[in-house]
């Protein structure tokens, strides 16, 4: 049964005689196998996660002890300034922290790593619809890595106009040190990320629509797949807008157009060429993509968490259809609320009201999802494994992030808290407390499938506990800063009387943030140790229902050693029709007490 891996390779090796260098490259480097591509994405994004985290420590250091020498790291990084962070470098730090985390970590880890790995396995397909395109979607990330990474080393030390890249600051090279070559590289990097997501999303949509196993109807899809599907739809519709806008900004910078540059502008005492454009146009175009992108960054995570919660509560999902509708509702509403990023931007205040009502309504499907998760664990038999702990943390942190969103949706309140740390708290609760927790949960959950071995539970729980404590220490405190009006993106907030007394609380947050990064050490060690030396896992170590657990661990080429046929939805845990407390999707009905790893197999 587990010989499929060897069989797959053996069959492959026939062509070239033996497993040589060329074979190694096609198998592990330029692979067209969705599983290898998924794992490539996983490793790349985890590496960038570390980079993004360290950039955040730079930001936190400056806010806790402004203009002071950074111990150990300082002299290495900023020797020119004597180990201190300069204001120019600080603007680069938060710009690149957000850029890396958004475009190189969260979006690619969900869609690229988990999407690629899980979609064909969970729907019972042997690969993606377009394997070569899939390979390209990973390799086009490398120019993005080089462009973003390289922009740290050109004049201006990296793009520094914020991840939102608002013109005219971002369009006029004279306006800021990082607005020169670094900003051009940033825009080109963004385009590469866009191409990658676009190639991926076309692939996911086609695969999910066309390649489901017999019996796998849309309403039997695991929510993880629903999350990926809706995310791919969002990418397909919203991304072209951002790519076009990026191109327009590139033209503004290089070809002398003036899409986003108004008339009669003078920067640094030098009058600019006549523009005649509108800076607000960029904000509309940017947020038309980047608001739905917020859901691109959370919907697959919601799906993964739903799967994990059911598995470890040993219960069916509470309200499958409402969950699917809620996801679709969030995505649909997501397209008409971009203006809530612009309540104080100078946009017509009448529009503010429309966007406010739509934004308030988006809290509804989010509430439905939360209550359904609570309904799912109600009356179950909860097993506190590492993936379960991370998923439960996702639910509670998402509640905090969701509720603080209501403050922002309220236009008058937003006047005060806009661009303060209240916003920073909100999106870190959603994206770190939420998405990152789900990602960790997903890694612990699907690790046995990916590598054929299980991760260590003790160190998994240690990782969870430390991360959870310090994440709240860091991000909850931000709400309080926000209530004082503490603005984002200030290199030295204590320049203002109003914020001078906030330095001790910032120091507390910085210590928590450093400890939070340090809390990832058990994870990294556990990950690599378990990859090679962890206890071997069978096909279905968690006794889960999904199709992926019926394939060998790790699955070989073509995924399944039988033709999967689907008889029911993925959440039939504790079903009275089955003797076990689970009921795999491939197990035909009325066959009580079948052995868990070998449902009636139809040879392929």
């Amino acid at each position, binding site marked *: 049964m587990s010989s499929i891996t060897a069989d797959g390779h053996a069959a492959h090796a026939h062509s070239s005689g033996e497993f040589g260098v060329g074979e190694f490259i096609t198998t592990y480097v330029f692979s067209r196998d969705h599983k290898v591509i998924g794992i490539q994405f996983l490793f790349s994004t985890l590496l960038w996660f570390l980079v993004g985290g360290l950039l955040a420590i730079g930001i936190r250091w400056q806010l806790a002890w402004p203009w002071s020498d950074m111990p150990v790291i300082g002299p290495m990084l900023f020797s020119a300034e004597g180990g201190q962070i300069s204001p120019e470098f600080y603007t680069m730090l938060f710009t690149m922290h957000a850029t890396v985390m958004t475009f190189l970590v969260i979006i690619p880890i969900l869609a690229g790593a988990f999407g690629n790995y899980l979609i064909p396995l969970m729907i019972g397909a042997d690969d993606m619809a377009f394997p070569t395109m899939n390979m390209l979607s990973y390799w086009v990330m490398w120019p993005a890595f080089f462009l973003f990474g390289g922009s740290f080393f050109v004049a201006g030390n990296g793009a520094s106009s914020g991840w939102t890249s*608002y013109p005219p600051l971002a369009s006029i090279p004279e306006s800021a040190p990082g607005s020169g070559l670094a900003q051009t590289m940033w825009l080109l990097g963004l385009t590469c990320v866009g191409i990658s997501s676009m190639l991926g999303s076309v692939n996911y949509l086609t695969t999910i629509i066309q390649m489901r196993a017999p019996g796998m109807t849309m309403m039997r899809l695991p929510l993880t797949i629903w999350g990926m599907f809706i995310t791919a739809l969002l990418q397909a519709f919203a991304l072209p807008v951002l790519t076009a806008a990026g191109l327009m900004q590139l033209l503004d910078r290089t070809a002398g157009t003036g899409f986003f540059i108004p008339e009669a502008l003078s920067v640094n005492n030098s009058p600019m060429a006549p523009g005649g454009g509108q800076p607000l146009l960029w904000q509309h175009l940017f947020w038309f993509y980047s608001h739905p992108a917020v859901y691109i960054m959370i919907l697959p995570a919601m799906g993964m968490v739903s799967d994990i919660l059911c598995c470890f509560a040993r219960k069916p999902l509470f309200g499958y259809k409402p969950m699917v509708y809620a996801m679709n509702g969030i995505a649909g509403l997501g397209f008409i609320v971009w203006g809530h990023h612009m309540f104080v931007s100078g946009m017509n205040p009448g529009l503010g009201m429309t966007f406010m009502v739509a934004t308030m309504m988006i809290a509804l499907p989010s*509430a439905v999802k939360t209550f359904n998760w609570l309904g799912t664990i109600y009356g179950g038999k909860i097993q506190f494994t590492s993936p379960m702990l991370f998923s439960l943390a996702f639910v509670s942190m998402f509640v905090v992030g969701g*509720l603080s969103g*209501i403050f922002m949706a309220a236009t008058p309140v937003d006047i005060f808290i806009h661009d303060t740390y209240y916003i920073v708290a909100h999106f870190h609760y959603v994206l770190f407390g939420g998405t990152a927790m789900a990602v960790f949960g997903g890694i612990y959950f699907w690790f046995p499938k990916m590598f054929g071995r299980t991760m260590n539970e003790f160190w998994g729980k240690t990782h969870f506990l430390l991360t959870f404590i310090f994440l*709240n220490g860091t991000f909850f405190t931000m709400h309080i800063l926000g209530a004082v009006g503490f603005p984002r993106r200030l290199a030295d907030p204590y320049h203002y009387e109003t914020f001078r007394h906030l330095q001790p609380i910032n120091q507390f947050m910085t210590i928590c943030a450093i400890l939070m990064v340090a809390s990832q050490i058990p994870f990294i060690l556990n990950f690599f140790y378990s990859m090679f030396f962890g206890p071997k896992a069978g096909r279905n170590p968690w006794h889960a229902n999904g199709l992926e657990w019926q394939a060998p661990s790790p699955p070989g080429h073509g995924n399944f050693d039988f033709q999967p046929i689907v008889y029911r939805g993925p959440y039939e845990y504790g079903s009275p029709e089955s003797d076990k407390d689970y009921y795999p999707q491939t197990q035909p009905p009325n066959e009580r007490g079948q052995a868990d790893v070998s449902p009636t197999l139809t040879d392929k």
Partner: protein
Amino acid sequence: MGTLIIVWAAMDWYPLEGHWFPERVVENGSIDHLFYCILWLTGIVFIATGILLFWFLWKYDAAKNDQPVVFSHGSHYMEVMWSVVPAIILLFLAIYQMDAWAGARMRRPTLANGQPMPPIARVTGRQFEWRIQYPGADKKFDTPDDLYVTNLLHIPRDEEIVLEIESDDVLHSFFLPNFRVKQDVVPGMKQFIWFKPIKDGAYDIVCAELCGWGHYKMKGQITVQSRNDFDAWLQKTYDEQELSEFSLAEAE
């Protein structure tokens, strides 16, 4: 635990005193009021879901729960309940705040004759300073008797104040934490903001939109004073400006 921290901060207890809204010095308190309304509502929801979650985790722990699991695919009644109730609350919030928004952004104060009130000064954001221009005795901008000041904005107390804000170069954001006022300053656009100060003192003008490397030091000061003090300051500063122009001419 998080809720406790919020309560602690809101109560102004040691050591978190001052870690909440800065002192409000304008008449209109609708933003603070709305914030507290939402804080109460969300606080209740937050505590309720938190308690439910932890209760379920404790009660249905597989290690001690020997009951069979509840095999249920959901409940239509519950779904309707937890869709409709939040919908009503959110709709209430949405309608409840419209007046405050209109007051802050759409109803510009008017003169006795119904004309929109003219701005008392024009504030222009520029990397990295606030340039302030008073119209002078003729009440018109860009005439020879205009007064120019940098970073120091003075306004009279107990009067409706209208300010015209503009930008010379990139985006800025005119943020007065104590006045609950924030408005992005967009190049190419002329915008008006208004408020009614009720307390004397000097407060920070903060730039809240990233405007380049020196963003953090784009600091101004707004001084609220009685009408008499304000007029006296205006006269004195104008005289100084005239004098410096004379001395400049002599030096050449």
